[in-house]
């Protein structure tokens, strides 16, 4: 069903794999942590 609607990722995520999603979450979190560390 998901495959019909999206040709990338699944119905639950836009990323191709869980590992890819984890990696994006990791990078996003580290960037946020760096910004908070520097500016707050």
């Amino acid at each position, binding site marked *: 069903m998901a495959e019909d609607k999206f040709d*990338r990722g699944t119905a639950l995520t836009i990323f191709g794999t869980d590992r890819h999603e984890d990696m994006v979450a990791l990078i996003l979190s580290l960037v946020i*942590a760096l910004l908070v560390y520097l500016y*707050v």
Partner: protein
Amino acid sequence: MVYTKRTPWTLIMGLIMVAYAYLVQSGALEAVIKYLGTGRNAGEMVMLGYIFGGIAVLTGLWQLIAKTAEGHVDYYLSTIGGVTFIMLIAFIVKWGLDPQMAEWGKAAQPALGFNFAGVMNLNYVVMGILAGIVIVNVFKVPDWAANGVRLSRLGLKTGVILLGTLYSFAELAQLGQLSVALIGVFVLGSVGLVLWWGSRKNLPNSMTGVLSAGVGVCGVSAAVAAAPVVQAKSTEIAYTIGTILMFGVICMFVFPIVGKALGMGYITFGAWAGTGILNSAQVAGAALAFQPNGIETLKVAEIFNITRVLFLPIIVIWLAIWYVKREVGAQKVDIGQVLISKFPLFVLGFLMLFLLSSTGIFAPARHYQGAYFDNSDKVMIKKDRSGKEVNNYLKDPDLAVLKQEGEKVKRDDQKAALQRLVENKKLMSIDDDDTLRGVVNAKIMSKEGNAVLTKAHRAVRHTAAKIAMFRDLIAWFFTFGLVGLGMQITMASIRQAGGQPLVIGSVVGVIKAVGSLIVVMLLVHETI
């Protein structure tokens, strides 16, 4: 495939957000904000309104004007409409429905005899998920928002990683052993129970295997991670996810009600939710529903939840061996390879930020949940925004009240702490502070006396600004993720949780929930 839809809605939502931020900033909505009691969120309303509204306006214009072509730019920019949609619902729920429901709950209390908003946990978390469920099942998620909704799990994972900043070694050392023991018993126990029962009922090994991981470890992610190990079919994964989500949704609503009815504290409830609820997102939902205005319950629940996730590799190995043994002629599974490829990286991210936080870069290393003790002159004598000096030492009238009421204090340790406070005009140690908090809680002194002690307490207890910022960010990431999660709970996915997998999953889930409730009530205390 081109994902960008030529819709005016992204632009319209962006304009609404910017207009709202402007109205708050200009003071035009002061009466409404005062009525709802959301004044402390005004800064947040302005900042988030301009940021998300601005991005949505620019993207909305681009969607209407530019020619789109298949590719990465089209794909990733097409998520912004959905993200804006979720955030708009989160704004309405958090800054409108939530405080309004609290007001209605209070207003109806005399007639009903109880505060229905409090009892039913009708806060922004629950209402956000409900809003998502209503939208997907009654109105359907618009096509232009579908890609953004698929980012909700990313929001939850980012929130979990950032949660690492709130922990320090001292805290985990207190909860660590208990969480490992509790989780170990219940995770391994429920996996074993599902495997045994599924075999007795002659369910396919792949179905039983994937269901056991889902019910035992961390819900949807575990089911998906375990699927290749037991070579599960997509329909079996769908059945398992349907079962987990349906059971989890019920738990998310029932757990906070039971917790409040039993008078559980933040730590006991967090431990129970983290152990008994199947899916990570719903653990967060239940914890936030139990304590919507703080994060202590969520933190404890997440420690247990993370401990549970850490059991995934053990379960994966167990299932691999179990499956290979049962399936004669099943393809050989490379256990090492499965471990390396399936271990959730976001858990490593959580651990990384936890280690960084423990070094003291976000708050003094001795901080406890971002709060720390400091009675140096640097913080006792400060300058306010206008540059005027503010002295936080106790003044003569304060000391007179304490001297006058000192006789009411009978315990030696309390007397000594009070004596030191009077002599130094400030609290001299964490122990003294804790001891005198006991005096306040026991209402030994008059209202005036307690007010002076509380003033002295506030002068030496501080919350790290960085940790406070992390708390706000985490709450928003979870709100975003949970509203999006609600939009993925369709009646079809709930109906899929039928038949024997539903029965086995639900019974084992209930056993786990009730068993962990009993054990938590017996073993876990509000000691930290």
